[in-house]
């Protein structure tokens, strides 16, 4: 306390003001913009369209000005159904992936930070979970339980937990003895504070990139489960189930019934994967 | 830009017969942009000459451009870097704009390179002896057995004990010092005229540093080759090389016979570097104030002006050219 003894308290420095150029930053991430669009469509689209279960005059009508994507075997409007289905698919995808992150990330971080028996145990459990083919595992559990939406979400989340656990663990491991973590220990910070303040923020980029991939993956699993008939059942609007329902008509030339929901899956999955890339490579 | 043009050696220099082994003139290298101004120019007209059978050091701090100069000579400029101006000649042959095949032949042949990290220069999945033998085989056309024997001989000459057995080891089985000896053996395997050693001992401890440098000098001398030693340590340069070139902010500040330059530096930067590195003062260390300038455009004044004790208004007028003063060249208006 020698240098400050001169009485006059010097003005405390202020942080510089920075204009967030969010728009500019978004433009450099086109896939992000597309994803935003898809989410907006899922959120607000249904308000502008009719009931997805409403029956029309024609079954299996080809795409026209009346029915942009045509109608299906029940004479429902496919465009309306594809937009409505976006809600369910994205919601299941996001929630399942989010649950997986919430469980996997702290566990993985703790495993890496603690090490020892705790780490080994978690690793073995997640390895044995991952040893099963994902779809088969999901299939097994769904057939054992009754296939309701919450059950589907839980299952998709469960098969994704090991992914985050291992990802976070391997990202955290090099940080455990990083100098800045040691410095925080020198500042008298405890284990959990250090994890929360210094370790997790530094792995968030990797985890968020994976999150995006996993939402896509969750949507694919849901669609696949619906496709093989244990997921969502028609006529509930869901992309996988719609593809399943339309597949039979493909050979008769009524391609639109399966194609449009299929394209919706493709576009969403590609966009999410692209977003993951942008997170990884972005500034 | 004389890219592509000067292959036929028009510019043979004044005195015939006295062509230096390596001549770098006004070498200017830029990164990125160009028109939109996002350009950085890390080399701002570097000039130096390495005569035959001479050991020369290129001394500078990080960002001085010493390693980039070496990369340019080797034709291995990093992605995004362009030669804006200048020439690099190996015995009169222009290397800027030379085609990649020619450069590749020079790199393994007349010019050899030794990097800071020996483990990164050797392939981890091949035996050390096998790699050296391969280089010999490709460059000299010798047979397998013959190449192998020559590789073992070389390792032995580099002071690797039990060379025949160690030749079958992989690089991870070598200690740091041994690995750097093996890299030297590989560099010398095709009998280069010029060995470029980029901080060859920086990762090594002082006692090892000395051993490796002794070996490099001995080998280069015995083979009549030239050495371009790139180092941040002027004390090492002083001990190893007859000639010295001191770089700062992408320019050569002073060059000449090492003894002359270190005994009485003509450029204040050289003097400051010597004081900071060599002189040990009790209780206080010599410090050069300020930081190295960022080279975001062409220089307009002496790059050391902001940190120089002797700075005057004439230092700000323009970039001082390298001028010949006695046996050396100095870029300082006050010299």
């Amino acid at each position, binding site marked *: 306390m020698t240098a400050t003894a001169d009485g006059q308290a010097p003005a405390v420095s202020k942080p510089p003001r920075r204009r967030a150029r969010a728009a500019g930053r978004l433009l450099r991430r086109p896939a992000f913009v597309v994803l935003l669009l898809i989410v907006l469509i899922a959120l607000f689209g249904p308000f502008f369209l009719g009931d997805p279960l409403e029956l029309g005059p024609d079954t299996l009508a080809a795409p026209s000005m009346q029915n942009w994507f045509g109608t299906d075997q029940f004479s429902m409007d496919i465009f309306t159904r594809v937009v409505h289905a976006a809600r369910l698919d994205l919601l299941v995808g996001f929630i399942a992936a989010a649950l997986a992150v919430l469980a996997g990330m702290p566990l993985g971080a703790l495993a890496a930070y603690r090490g020892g028996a705790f780490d080994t145990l978690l690793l073995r459990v997640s390895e044995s979970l991952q040893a099963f083919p994902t779809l088969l595992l999901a299939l097994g559990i769904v057939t054992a339980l009754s296939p309701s939406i919450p059950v589907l979400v839980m299952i998709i989340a469960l098969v994704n937990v090991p992914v985050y656990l291992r990802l976070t663990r391997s990202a955290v491991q090099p940080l455990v003895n990083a100098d800045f973590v040691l410095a925080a220990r020198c500042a008298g910070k405890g284990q959990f504070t250090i994890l929360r303040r210094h370790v997790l923020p530094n792995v968030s980029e990797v985890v968020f990139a994976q999150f995006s991939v996993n939402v896509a993956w969750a949507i694919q699993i849901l669609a696949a489960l619906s496709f093989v008939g244990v997921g969502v059942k028609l006529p509930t609007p869901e992309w996988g189930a719609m593809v399943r329902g339309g597949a039979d008509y493909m050979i008769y030339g009524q391609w639109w019934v399966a194609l449009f929901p299929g394209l919706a899956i493709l576009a969403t999955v590609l966009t999410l994967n692209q977003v993951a890339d942008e997170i990884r490579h972005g500034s | 830009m004389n890219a592509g043009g000067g292959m036929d050696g028009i510019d043979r220099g004044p005195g015939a017969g006295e062509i230096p082994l390596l001549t770098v003139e006004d070498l200017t290298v830029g990164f990125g942009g160009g028109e939109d101004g996002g350009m950085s120019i890390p080399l701002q007209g570097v000039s130096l000459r390495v005569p035959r059978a001479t050991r020369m050091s290129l001394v500078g701090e990080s960002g001085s451009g010493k390693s980039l100069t070496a990369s340019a000579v080797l034709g291995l400029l990093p992605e995004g870097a362009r030669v804006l101006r200048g020439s690099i000649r190996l015995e009169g042959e222009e290397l800027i704009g030379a085609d990649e095949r020619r450069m590749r032949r020079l790199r393994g042949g007349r010019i050899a390179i030794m990097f800071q990290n020996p483990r990164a220069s050797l392939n981890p999945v091949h035996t050390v002896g096998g790699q050296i033998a391969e280089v010999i085989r490709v460059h000299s056309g010798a047979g397998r057995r013959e190449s192998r024997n020559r590789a073992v001989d070389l390792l032995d000459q580099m002071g690797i004990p039990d060379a025949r057995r160690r030749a079958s080891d992989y690089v991870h089985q070598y200690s740091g010092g041994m690995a750097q000896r093996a890299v030297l053996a590989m560099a010398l395997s095709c009998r280069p005229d010029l060995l470029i050693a980029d901080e060859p001992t920086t990762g090594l401890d002082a006692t090892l540093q*000395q051993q490796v440098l002794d070996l490099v000098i001995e080998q280069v001398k015995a083979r009549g080759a030239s050495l371009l030693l790139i180092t941040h340590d002027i004390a090492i340069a002083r001990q190893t090389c007859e000639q010295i070139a001191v770089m700062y902010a992408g320019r050569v500040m002073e060059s000449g016979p090492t003894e002359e330059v270190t005994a009485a530096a003509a450029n204040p930067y050289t003097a400051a570097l010597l004081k900071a590195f060599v002189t040990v003062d009790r209780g206080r260390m010599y410090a050069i104030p300020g930081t190295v300038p960022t080279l975001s455009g062409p220089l307009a004044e002496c790059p050391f002006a902001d940190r120089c004790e002797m700075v005057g208004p004439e230092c700000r007028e323009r970039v001082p050219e390298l001028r010949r003063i006695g046996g050396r060249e100095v870029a300082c208006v006050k010299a």
Partner: protein
Amino acid sequence: MREGMNGPVLEVGELVKDYVTRDAKLRQRVARAVDGISFAVQPGETFAIVGESGSGKSTVGRVLLKLTDATEGNVHLLGEEILGMPERRFRALRRHIQMVFQDPLAAFDPRATIRSSLREFAGFGGGRSRAEQNRAIDQAIRDVGLPPEISWRRPSQVSGGQLQRLSIARSLLVKPQLLFLDEPTSSLDVSIRGQIVNLLVEIQDREGIAYLLVAHDLRVVYVMAHRVAVMYLGQFVEIGTRDQIYERARHPYTRGLLEAALLDEPARAGDPVRLTGEISEEQVRKPGCRLTPRCPFAEARCDEPQQLRPTGDGRLVRCWKAVEVPVSIGLHGSGSSSEGR
């Protein structure tokens, strides 16, 4: 608060640190990085440990800060034994012993502003208001010769030299009694190195902090240290005052290190010593002097265990020849002190 204590800031007794690793066949291998070292650091002094990489010198400091566990031995910080102390209780004592890292860029959280890194230290143990913390941070930054505004940047946005100053400012925020300097200049450029060394010396003169300096740069050690310990393969081979070590080194390893450092001055007594070969952990398993394969003076008796022995001028040397027959290893009694006959 320094009046109360006249004893050493830090006292280390027979410290041992083993690293257990597994080899390719999953067999346990014990590597002894630190092998029974003892020393004390007095208030306001700089105690330096020098040696090549692999000597274990950095490990010593990390053990003392309890960033890694010791295997054996005892450490007293301001009189209190800390090795057996649980982490939770030691946390409060951390304010007395701090660390400056070799690479300042690695020592700061890349995502956080420098200021928030400093704030963690300013808020040590709680009890300071945010305004007080801010004033303390700004003052600490001014004390190392930088404008406080710089702290709003991120670590990657300032130069290495500036960041090392900020790292020093950060560790001083808790007013430590002892600062462990782990190669504080070796990631910096030559022209910046002197600035940091001078700053550290100024701070010591002003605040009376003790330094434990670990470095391989013998120029830096010469300028900063009061006493020097030379470490080789986990052991101290020579301990003495700075001048004893630099001008009248006894141990062949010390002399070899000084020779290789290409120092201009001071003039050294005795013939120059050149060490051959390199450091090898195999030697740790042998009972005798660990330098024998590299030492030009080695003979049969060197294979017997060597103790640190006093030479009569207050220093300790782990070499029987240096103590008993210095002339045989090229020490011609040209030094000012008695040759310990």
